[in-house]
């Protein structure tokens, strides 16, 4: 798989030429250079911080909304269409408004990452909780479980595999949201570097950053996928 991708990449690089692309080897050498240069780390740390915070917020808020609406049929009847509508709008158009609200800085990036990630997590959780087989809930009631135990003992584990799928999507979208936020306006971060690199037509940096991001997202997503499969295997 990886070999195939590399071959495709190499072939494309030869086809396109030097103006817009680098070969895998060149990219990796440059990536290594980048990783050893001290000026790179503050950017990485900045993005990492913003992304981590955004992801945390997205997960916590998303799960809360998902569970609330999943349990309360009426609230979900009212709000689910709103969530779906929000999911489908190009959020980048809202970025100016976010900037107006949060100013240029970490807060706006975090907010932008969060609004990208929170809705899919909420929607998946909502569906997962609602799809918990009624017989499980009945079993809980027959055992006289209260709401808290019902959630922790039955709803959460039963809905876990689907929630995980939502987390995976949410993870990806939060990352891209954070990066987009940095690309549009910021002073540090990988998105900022990427935007500058595009502005300066610095193909090396573009390739190396994209490579790093894909690598990071790929391994994180792979890990989540692996955990997800484990969860599904039991079910």
């Amino acid at each position: 798989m990886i070999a195939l991708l590399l071959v495709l990449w190499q072939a494309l690089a030869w086809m396109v030429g030097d103006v817009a692309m680098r070969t895998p080897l060149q990219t990796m050498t440059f990536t290594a250079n980048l990783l050893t240069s001290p000026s790179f780390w503050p950017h990485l740390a900045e993005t990492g911080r913003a992304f981590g915070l955004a992801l945390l917020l997205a997960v916590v808020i998303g799960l809360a909304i998902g569970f609330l609406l999943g349990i309360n049929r009426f609230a979900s009847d009212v709000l689910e269409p709103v969530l779906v509508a929000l999911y489908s709008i190009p959020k980048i158009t809202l970025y100016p408004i976010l900037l107006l609200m949060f100013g240029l800085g970490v807060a706006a990036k975090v907010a932008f990452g969060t609004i990208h990630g929170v809705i899919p997590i909420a929607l998946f959780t909502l569906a997962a909780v609602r799809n918990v087989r009624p017989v499980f809930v009945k079993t809980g009631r027959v055992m006289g479980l209260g709401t808290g135990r019902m959630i922790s003992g039955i709803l959460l584990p039963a809905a876990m595999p689907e929630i995980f799928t939502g987390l995976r999507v949410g993870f990806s979208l939060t990352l891209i949201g954070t990066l987009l936020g940095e690309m549009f306006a910021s002073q540090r971060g990988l998105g900022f570097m990427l935007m500058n690199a595009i502005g300066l037509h610095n193909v090396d940096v573009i390739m190396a950053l994209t490579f790093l991001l894909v690598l990071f997202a790929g391994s994180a997503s792979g890990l989540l996928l692996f955990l997800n499969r484990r969860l599904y295997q039991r079910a």
Partner: protein
Amino acid sequence: RAEDIVVSNYGVSANGMPFAVALKKGFFKDEGADVTGILSSAGGGTTLRNMLAGSAPYAEVNPNAVIAAIQQGADIKIVSDNVLTVAEFVWAVKPDSPIQSPKDLKGRKFGYTNPRSTSLALATLVVQSGGLKTEDVEMVKTGGFGEGIPALDLGMIDVAPIPEPLWSKYQSKYRAIARAADLLPPIANVVGVAAGGQSAAKEDFVRAVIRARRKAVDFMRQNPDEAGDIVAEAYNLEQDVARNSVRYLVNATTDGIQYWGTGQIHLEGLNRAIEVQKMVGAISGDIDAKSIVDTRFLPDDIKAMK
């Protein structure tokens, strides 16, 4: 007091280079301004909105954003004239291209970034300098300067605008057919802005920033190579590219006017900028350049407008 300042396209365009130098050489501190960070944003509007939101007392932006903001009722004034010419612009072709000068542009594909942008305005002037009308050439938008380079390389456009420091990086690969420094009159390019009604402490901060920047510009003139090395680091450029770029811009004078100004206001250039932006439709209405300028932050020796 620790404050951020906002500089449009810092890290990409040449206009912000003096700030990199001032920061690195500690000029801000020397002058009494504790600048903690230089925020960058892609456009003047974002820069201004951030400044207005109270996160920065001083910003460096292009004049048309300032004018648009003032027209919308924002309480801001131009407090320093930072980049006085458009000398960073070079229009280049592939080495083997038959185009030698703007006169040969008839029927050619002429690149610019996006609608209503400065690059379009300047492109128009370049075409006119070759004795042609805009209808005589095919204007092609590329989306950005970076994107213009592969487009030129692949022959999708015949002429690409390449500003510094991009030009220093690619000058060996392409051939310049027009340089703004030679062709175009001085046009105010980037100005310093501050909001009205700030506290006295912030006003002092603005003054200090202007002084520090002036010092940095002087320093760059004296030590272009050291300045280049500082820029290389801040802009993530190769050393020789950055040195080259600084040297080029330090030496580029248009009608005797430097690229990086001291801060002193050049009304003529400002008026010309307004004209040019009106030409491409980026701004509209009557604007009195004098009424949007406030010179009280400038050092006494350059308070007078030129």
